[in-house]
């Protein structure tokens, strides 16, 4: 048995990371920090599009979670800056030595919003429901290695895996492990989670109403099970839908928007920082933007070409322009924020990892050696034109290549084309600007989806079509291990191989923006804010 409640000891304070104020939305300057939270009041949060559902089974995006994760809750939760796991609806859990059996102690006295008790039967039902292929849950894949879920007694749930899965534990803190009421879900049938029916959970806020295309309303759950360490304080939360970025900025200015996570337009950060009534802060992320190409097609099947393009890209210049103060990147998607275990080993590996800092001479030399540089001439770089930073990456790349005497054309794409290129058959782009963020606080959450060859097929996330049997073997092997030191060793080995192969040019690791009105207090986000219950400890001063 291994202990899972290791206290968090080290902050993620490496290098430029320190500039990030993780504790966003502290009381504004001039207000005493010791001010006690006030009960009551309401808050307006804004999201950019209509949520998919308030059914956790379909919450796997950046807009649905604000409501969903306030209504229903997972068995365990991410904590300590989203780097560790803490108890939630399960008060404790243990993992067997072979990594196959998870035994969870389910908390007593937790009630659903309709007043009924949450039972182990509800927990088993909730997990089995997500696993049921009939439901087609968007997070069903997270429970793929689950063989069986049982409740041996009134306070214990046992989950048996068919094979050890290092990432499974994290799934228990995602929407895949939100506990829903069996009676309510069965009564609602297919309408569960839609605006007409809504949802019922154990969370700090209750579903009130959802006006399609306009807003969702939540109200405080006065019977919340976990009021000892804080809220819920707010009487009411309104989550409004506002697709236009310019209007979102105007709404922050007028004070009509209290809370805006992620959807602060990146080219307006300076404007928002200039508002007297708004605090803009950034949380570290497991997210990055990068350039890639189909590594199975000429000339990108030539490692020298890939390394040359990496050396040609002005990553530091782009970071300074679009994400000042964010961490440097090296030739990996495992950002320092993701060293959630064996930090020393990761640091040592980072120190020797190539950064491919811009060096046009070296790029020119490598291109000459490759002998296929002329094939690059006239190729296109595809990017989604509505994201300012992605446009910037493409333009900077075109500029750098022209300095090498190579003409690259811009291919602006729509969102649909962008998705098809990143997740399609790899036959519709030459060079591609993309992005990826890990679902879990684990290095393999960025390595396996992007570099495992099992993710090359259509629908898969390996946009480089990168296939290296040695890397595959390491990634698969580490996933079956329980010992974290051993996992780190294998992942670091894979990372080094990938860095040398240069299938992808890692440009940035931007922070998640959070803009709040200065009457809002206790608002905090972490790298995995999209899984988090965001409003429990938030309060407002009038």
């Amino acid at each position: 048995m291994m202990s899972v409640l290791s206290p968090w000891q080290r902050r993620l304070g490496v290098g430029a990371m320190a500039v990030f104020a993780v504790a966003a939305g502290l009381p504004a300057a001039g207000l005493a920090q010791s001010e006690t939270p006030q009960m009551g009041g309401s808050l307006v949060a804004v999201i950019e599009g209509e949520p998919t559902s308030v059914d956790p089974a379909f919450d796997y995006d950046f807009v649905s979670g604000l409501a969903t994760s306030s209504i229903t809750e997972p068995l365990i939760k991410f904590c300590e800056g989203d780097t560790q796991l803490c108890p939630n609806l399960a008060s404790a859990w243990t993992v067997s030595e072979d990594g196959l059996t998870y035994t969870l102690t389910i908390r007593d006295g937790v009630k659903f919003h309709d007043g009924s008790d949450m039972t182990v039967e509800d927990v088993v039902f909730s997990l089995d429901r997500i696993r049921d292929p009939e439901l087609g849950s968007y997070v069903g894949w997270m429970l793929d290695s689950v063989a069986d879920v049982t409740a041996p007694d009134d306070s214990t749930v046992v989950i048996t895996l068919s094979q050890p899965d290092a990432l499974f534990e994290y799934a228990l803190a995602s929407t895949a492990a939100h506990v829903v009421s069996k009676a309510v879900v069965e009564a609602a049938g297919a309408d569960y989670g839609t605006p007409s029916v809504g949802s019922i959970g154990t969370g700090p806020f209750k579903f009130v109403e959802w006006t399609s295309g306009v807003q969702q309303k939540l109200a405080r759950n006065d019977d919340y099970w976990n009021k000892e360490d804080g809220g819920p304080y707010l009487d009411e939360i309104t989550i409004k839908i506002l697709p236009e970025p310019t209007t979102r900025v105007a709404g922050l200015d007028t004070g009509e928007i209290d809370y805006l996570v992620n959807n602060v337009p990146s080219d307006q950060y300076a404007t928002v920082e200039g508002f007297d009534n708004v605090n803009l802060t950034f949380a570290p992320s497991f997210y990055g933007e990068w350039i890639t190409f189909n590594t199975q097609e000429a000339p990108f099947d030539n490692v020298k070409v890939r390394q040359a393009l990496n050396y040609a890209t002005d990553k530091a210049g782009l970071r300074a322009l679009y994400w000042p103060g964010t961490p440097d990147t090296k030739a990996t998607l495992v950002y320092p924020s993701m060293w959630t275990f064996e930090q020393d080993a990761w640091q040592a590996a980072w120190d020797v990892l190539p950064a491919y800092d811009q060096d046009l001479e070296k790029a020119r030399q490598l291109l000459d050696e490759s002998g296929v540089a002329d094939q690059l001439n006239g190729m296109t770089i595809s990017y989604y034109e509505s994201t300012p930073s992605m446009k910037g990456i493409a333009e900077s790349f075109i500029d750098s290549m022209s300095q090498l005497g190579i003409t690259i054309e811009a291919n602006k794409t729509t969102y649909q084309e962008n998705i098809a290129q990143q997740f399609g058959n790899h036959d519709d782009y030459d060079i591609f600007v993309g992005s990826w963020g890990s679902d879990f606080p684990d290095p393999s959450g960025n390595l396996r989806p992007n570099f495992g060859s099992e993710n090359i097929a259509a629908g898969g996330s390996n946009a480089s079509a990168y296939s290296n049997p040695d890397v595959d073997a390491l990634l698969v092997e580490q996933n079956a291990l329980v010992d974290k030191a051993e996992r780190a060793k294998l992942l670091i080995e894979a990372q080094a191989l990938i860095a040398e192969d240069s299938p992808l040019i890692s440009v940035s690791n931007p922070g998640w923006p959070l803009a709040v009105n200065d009457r809002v207090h206790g608002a905090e986000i972490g790298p995995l804010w999209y899984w988090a219950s965001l409003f429990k400890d938030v309060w407002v001063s009038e």
Partner: protein
Amino acid sequence: MAGYAVRRLLAAIPTLIFVSFVTFGLVRLAPGDPVLIVLGGKRISPELMEQLREKFGLVGDPISQYLAWVGRAVQFDFGESFKLRQEVGDLIVARLPTTVELIAMSVLLAILLGIPLGVLQARRRESAVDYAGSFVAFIGVSSPVYFTAIIGILVFAVWLGVLPAFGSGDGPVDQLRHLILPAVALALGMIALTSRMTRSAMLEVLTSDFIEAARAKGLPERTILVKHALRNALIPVLTVISLQVGFLVVGTVLVESTMGLGGLGSLITDAIQNRDYPVIQASVLLLTVLFILLNLFTDLLYAVIDPRIRYT
């Protein structure tokens, strides 16, 4: 008149069939895989992709897909939105009122402001009022709705702080307050066109012999303008307004997403962006029906305004 209306409605059926067929084909010809887009940017399993394709009815040949869709549509079952997981019928019922309110307010503004402005301009031709009206119309016609909306937000919400920047409000009064900016932004172009059309139609009528005759008879100027001139000038104005309502629908798409009003317009834009076939098909069909009804209504209105027009 009733017989005429029924014949017109029956004649609309082939139009609807044609429109539904073309829409069905076009959305499928547009690039972009709905399944990939629904799961946009996230990790997915091939099994789930296959399953969704099945659920969305995207397997099998297009003709039988179309016939299956028509079979359900005639029973008012338009299926479930791919992206939003709600019944398309419910979605449209929820979203339609906002758009109808917006359009109704804009048309009302166009009639209440555009027509009097045009009459005044025609009456005081080449005066300061006429030039000022023409200038306003020029601005109104040439400003894109999106731009007008943003300027409106900046001036009335950010600088003056008298109107909300976005959203739809709680309760009737607050809702009306929230509709002012978007409705004005939407109506500006229409007010401009209506006033221009009224002005030129009035100018033409005011130089007719029967107006001279009325003046010679010593009728008061107000009676001449409203009862004799305007009534005759209204037919082309009405035609323009009715045509403009079509453009208003396009305008609502922009205004709704700019100002966070979840109406039919934003539903359609989202659906097109997300390749949400069932929503696109049903919305386009609904718009077609609305246009057919609007045209019929306009034609019938002609007869009310001008007794010489008779439908049999």
